[in-house]
C-alpha cells in the first residue's frame, strides 16, 4: 500500500513498483486514511511518507502496528528520516528519489516473514 499526499507521486510510484513485480492494493493521502486502509486492506507492506497533511507518518506507523494484521512499514521521504525508523517499529527508510523495486526488496529482505514472498 502507498501512502503519500501527492497523487502524482503515488501514480508514478505505483507504476514503478508494479513494473518491478509488486502489487499495489491501495493508496492513502493522509495518516488517518492510511491507518484505516491498513486495517481494511491488510497489505503486506505499507510505504509510508513521513510528512503527511494531518500528522506525522512516524506516528501513523505506530498506530498501524496495532491493526489486526499489522503490515511491514517502510518510511519514505524526500528528507532524511533514517533516524526515525527505530522509534516507530518501521522496517526501514527509503529516500523517495531512490525508490525502486530493488530498493524496497532490499529493505524487506531483513524481515524473515516476507523474505520468501518477495517478488
Amino acid at each position, binding site marked *: 500500500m502507498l501512502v503519500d499526499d501527492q497523487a*502524482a507521486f503515488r501514480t508514478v510510484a505505483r507504476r514503478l513498483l508494479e513494473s518491478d513485480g509488486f502489487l499495489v492494493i491501495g493508496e492513502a493521502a493522509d495518516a488517518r486514511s492510511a491507518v484505516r486502509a491498513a486495517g481494511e486492506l491488510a497489505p503486506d507492506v505499507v510505504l509510508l511518507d513521513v510528512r503527511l497533511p494531518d500528522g506525522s507518518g512516524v506516528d501513523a506507523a505506530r498506530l498501524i502496528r496495532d491493526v489486526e494484521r499489522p503490515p511491514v512499514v517502510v518510511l519514505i521521504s524526500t528528507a532524511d528520516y533514517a*533516524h526515525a525508523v527505530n522509534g516507530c517499529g518501521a522496517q526501514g527508510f527509503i529516500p523517495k528519489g531512490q525508490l525502486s523495486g530493488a530498493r524496497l526488496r532490499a529493505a524487506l529482505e531483513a524481515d524473515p516473514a516476507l523474505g520468501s514472498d518477495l517478488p
Partner: protein
Amino acid sequence: MLLVVGVVFGVLAERTQQLAGRSWPVMIADILGGWAFLVAGMLVWGRRPGNRCWWLLMAAGISWFVGTLWATADEVVSLIGFAFGGWHYLFMVWVLLAFPTGLVPLLRDRILLGVLVVLSTVRTLGRLFLFVPPDGTGCDCAPNRFLPITDPMWFDAAESLYMWGYTATILLALISVAVRWSGSSRPGRRMLAPVLSAGTAVLAGQAYDRLNQSHEIVDVLTQEGMFYVLVLLRVIAAAAFVFGLWRLKGSRSAVADLVADLGPDAASPAPLEAALRRALGDPTLVLLPWSPAAGGYVDDHEQAVALPVDDGRRAITRIERRGVPVAALVHDPALLEDPGLINGVVAAVRLTADNERLRDEVDRQLVEVAASRSRILDAGDAERRRIERDLHDGAQQRLVTIGLALRLTEARLGKDADPQMRSDLVQAVKDLGEAIDELRDLAQGIHPSILTEAGLAAALESLADRAPVPVHLQVDLPDDVAPPIAATAYFAVAEALTNIAKHARAATVEVLASSRGDRVEIVVVDDGVGGASESAFGSGLRGIADRVAAVGGSMRVHSPAGGGTRLELSLPCE
C-alpha cells in the same frame, strides 16, 4: 582695581597720621585694620563674585581709613575724616547681619541697619554743623565752617545720642545674631560661628571708641594696647568672614561629595536620605519621595504622609521637575541660610531622580529589545520552517516524482531503443538526483525538519553523520528543550562543523551536548590548527553569536594557534 584704590587710600591716610606725629607701630596696626577687610573682600569676590558680602567687606575696609584723614593739614579732607570716621562700624554690622548671603532677610535686622544709618547720619551732620572747637586751649580739631554755632551743647548731645544709640543697636544686632545661632541646627551654628566672633570684634571696637572718648583713659600705653587689641580683633573678624564663606564653599563641596556618594543604590529613598544627611550635616533631615500612585508624598513604607507645617522649626524644600513633584526635603531651617547649598542638594536629588527614571527607561527598553529580538528570532524560525516545508512539499516532491517517472521510462525502454536516448535518459536521472540532493541539503540548511520532528539529540546525530570530519558525539539532553534553544544549538554546531571542515584541518571533532541545571551546555572541540580570533569569525558564527545572545545564552571561543579550537555555548533550557 578697587583693592589698589583701597590700599593706596590707606597708605595716604596713614601718611597724614605720620605727619600728625603718630608712631610707626600704631600706623602699621591701623593700616592692617583696614587692609584686612580689603583683602577679605577681594578673597570673597574672587571665590564667590555673586555674593554681596564682598563689597560690604571692602566698604568696611575703605571706610576704616576715612577716619584716619582727620589728622591731615587740609581742612576739607580733615573735616571729611572727622565727619565720616565712624561709618566703618555700619558696614561691619551690615556684613554681620547679611552673612552669609549678603542679603538681610529678617525685618528686625533691616530695622537695626536703618537705625544705624540714621545714627551715623546724625553723627556726621553733628560733626559737620554743630561742632564747636575749644577756644584755643590746644585743640587742633577743624573749626565749624558752616554755621555760627558757639554752644557745644548740641554737638555733645548728638555725639552722646550716637554713642549710646550705636552701642545699644550693635548689642541688639549681636543679640539678633545670637538668636539666629541658638535657633540653628549644628550646620547652621557652624556656619554662623564666624559671625559671632566678628560681632564680638565690632562690640570691642565700639567699647574702645567709647573709652577713648570718655576722658577716663590716663595711661597712653593702655590706650595703645586697646588699639592693638581692636586691630587684632578686626583682622580676626575679617578672617572669620572669609573662613565662614570658605566653609560654605566646603558645603558646596559636600554637595559634590553627595553626588559622588549617590551610588547605584542611592535611587532608593533610604540610602539617598542617609547621603543627604551626611552631606548637609543635618541628622534630622527626612526625604519624602513623591508617589504618583499615591498622589502625594510617601514615607519609607510607601504610605502617604502629610508634609509638616513650615513653622520656622522645620523647613520644607519641595523638589520638582518641570512642575511635577519629585520629592520633599524636611530639614533644619538653618540650611536655607545657604541657598546655594540647598539648590545644589535639590539639583542632586533631581539628578538622582532623573537617573532613576532613565535607568528604568533603559531597563524597560532592554526588556523590550530582548523581547523584540526573541520575536524576530521566532519569526525567522517560523519563516525558515515555512520555506523548508514549501520546498519539501513543492519543488522537491515534484522533482522526485519526475525522477521516478524518468527511471520508469528508462526501465520501459526496449532492448532496441536508441542507445543515445537511453544514455541521455540515464544522465538526466542522474543529474536530477543530484539536483534533488542539493535541494534537500538546502532545505535542511534552512530548517532541519529532523529538529522539529525528532528533537535536538537526533538532529545533532544527523549532523555528525553528515559531517566531512569524523565526529565523536556525546549527547545527554532532555527531550523538552525549547524549539528556539534547540535551533540555536543546532545551527551553532552546524556552523562550527562547517568552519572546521573549511579551515581547521582537523582530524577529529568532539561534540558534547548536555544539560546542567536549567542550562544546555554545548561544546565543540577540534584538534585542528586553531588560531581563530573572534574578529576572524565568519558572518555565520557572528550570526550564531547574535542568535545565542538573543535567547539569553553566551558563547565563548578558545582557539590558541596550533592548539585546536574550542567553542562553548551555554543556553537556557527555555
